[in-house]
């Protein structure tokens, strides 16, 4: 038991160290295409503003959507941006590049190094710029939302962060499951469109789903959890049961994602050079 704990600790330490090293490599690479950075940031801010305006328009007609007030919804939108950037800082761009790696056979490199292929793929393509604007607006929106809440405590901040991480696990597990298909069909463009809409749809509060829909969007396509649960935790809307369900979904998506992915890469048929 002690040995196991030590091994896990050592592994985490090693991956954190590798993350730092890879991050600096990626930054050096990004510097070469600096102008990209500003364009992307401006575009992101534009996109987020559109969602905010959309919600503003809706809220001029109603006072709440599925129990969510305007300021709570603002926190929800902001959380999506923060989770997106967290994903780009870890795994998201790796999956976008996966199709290319498979088609060109460069995925070979990830198979022969002493790092798990999914982690190597993720670290190889860490991107700060991709969702940076959205993250900044996200943080601003969340802070703005908090300042307008009346039932808010400091304890909810660490809880919020824990549930953001949990949502990242859900997102990662979901991406692993979807992208595992690539080892059979080679083309992934469509696959990542699915993942994109998955995140787009998570902007809407999970409470809008009822009955079968609620079950599906909690356990099978967990868009009802991704942004809704962290935002609920922060705004004090959540119940213990829904928080526990979210943690359960997070852990199960992450573990099944990793298991399915591991099985799938056995099917990798490297493009011959």
């Amino acid at each position, binding site marked *: 038991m002690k040995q196991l704990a030590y091994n896990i600790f050592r592994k985490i330490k*090693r991956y954190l*160290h*590798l993350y730092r*090293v*890879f991050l600096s*490599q990626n930054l*050096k*690479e990004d510097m*070469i295409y600096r102008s990209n950075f500003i364009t992307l940031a401006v575009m992101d801010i534009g996109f987020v503003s559109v969602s905010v305006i959309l919600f503003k328009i809706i809220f001029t007609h109603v006072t709440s959507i599925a129990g969510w007030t305007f300021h709570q919804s603002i926190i929800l939108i902001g959380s999506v941006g923060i989770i997106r950037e967290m994903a780009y800082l870890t795994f998201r761009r790796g999956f976008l590049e996966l199709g290319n790696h498979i088609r*060109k*056979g*460069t995925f*070979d*490199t990830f*198979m*022969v*190094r*002493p*790092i798990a292929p999914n982690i190597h793929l993720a670290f190889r393509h860490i991107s700060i710029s991709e969702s940076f604007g959205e993250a900044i607006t996200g943080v601003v929106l969340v802070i703005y939302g908090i300042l307008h809440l009346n039932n808010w405590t400091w304890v909810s901040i660490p809880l919020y962060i824990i549930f953001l991480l949990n949502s990242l696990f859900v997102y990662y597990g979901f991406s692993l499951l979807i992208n595992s298909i690539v080892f059979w069909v080679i083309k992934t463009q469509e696959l990542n469109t699915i993942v994109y809409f998955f995140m787009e749809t998570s902007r809407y509060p999970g409470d809008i789903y009822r009955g079968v829909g609620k079950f599906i969007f909690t356990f099978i396509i967990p868009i009802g959890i991704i942004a809704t649960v962290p935002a609920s935790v922060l705004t004090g809307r959540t119940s213990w049961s829904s928080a526990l369900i979210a943690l359960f979904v997070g852990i199960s998506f992450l573990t099944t994602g990793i298991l399915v992915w591991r099985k799938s890469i*056995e*099917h*990798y*048929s*490297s493009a*011959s*050079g």
Partner: protein
Amino acid sequence: MSTSIQVKNLSKTYEYFKKEAGLTGSLKSLFWREKLYNEALKGISFKIDEGELIGFLGPNGAGKTTTLKILSGILYPTSGEAVVLGYVPWKRSPEYQRQFSIVMGQKNQLWWDLPAQESFQLNKEIYEIDTKTYRNNLDELIELFEIKDILDIPVRKLSMGQRMKCELSAALLHSPRVLFLDEPTIGLDIISQEKIRHYISEYNKIKKTTVLLTSHYMRDVERLCGRVIVINNGIIVYDGSVQDLMNTYGKHKIIRLRLSKEYTENGLAKYGEILERDGLCVVLKTGKEDIAASTARILNELPVEDLSVEEIEIEEVIKKIFTG
């Protein structure tokens, strides 16, 4: 000497789907696809001792690369066994991965936009090489490969030959006990090819690293290896010394001629065996020893417009192994 690589009855069958041409074909394949099989390896067996430098020779699509990919854990075999350094490659255990390297002539493993030095540094972290060993190995490789001046140039700006030298250095930083090289000289000019061969043989001599090298150039293997395995259509057709192979099958050269006027077949036959004759273009085969003499005679006596001397192609050699 201990065994480094042991392969028994290794087979690999690729599955793929038939696709008909055109849009109708694509639409049809959405609903119904015919599954096709390609047997890349049909039960090959061989054994390689530690420190050996072995050539894996064969035409394109013979199964050389597939074998290397299975031995490095990139591909799962369909059936059969393989053990490298005591590990089953496709289990991809990190302990095994720290002890071998694979370099593929046509696949770039370095960071394209950054100088090679950056990729080296990253490999130091990936393979957890301690700083002192890293420094020593790097210095050694810089000297051997003569890459001191190109370390700070972005990889995309390097020539093919320079890039291959950096690829090799990156792969050798962690002092692998087994090195797989897939067509390391492909696409290089003659001088760079010769240099890469020189580095590989030097490294093998100094470090006693087991090297398994694939190529479809006879010259690579002739120059480098003591032993050669020839593979064709997924079957090993020859496994033995390069010397014997060369003595039996490689003692000829090919002369390609373009003449300015027609010449009789009898007249040509005295310069060598006629392999092909198409109007003014003639392909002759002649002994390796008297290649200089025959060329001189041809140039003197025939109305030559163009002449080139070539090695016998590997396909020819294999054909001969079969026909005896």
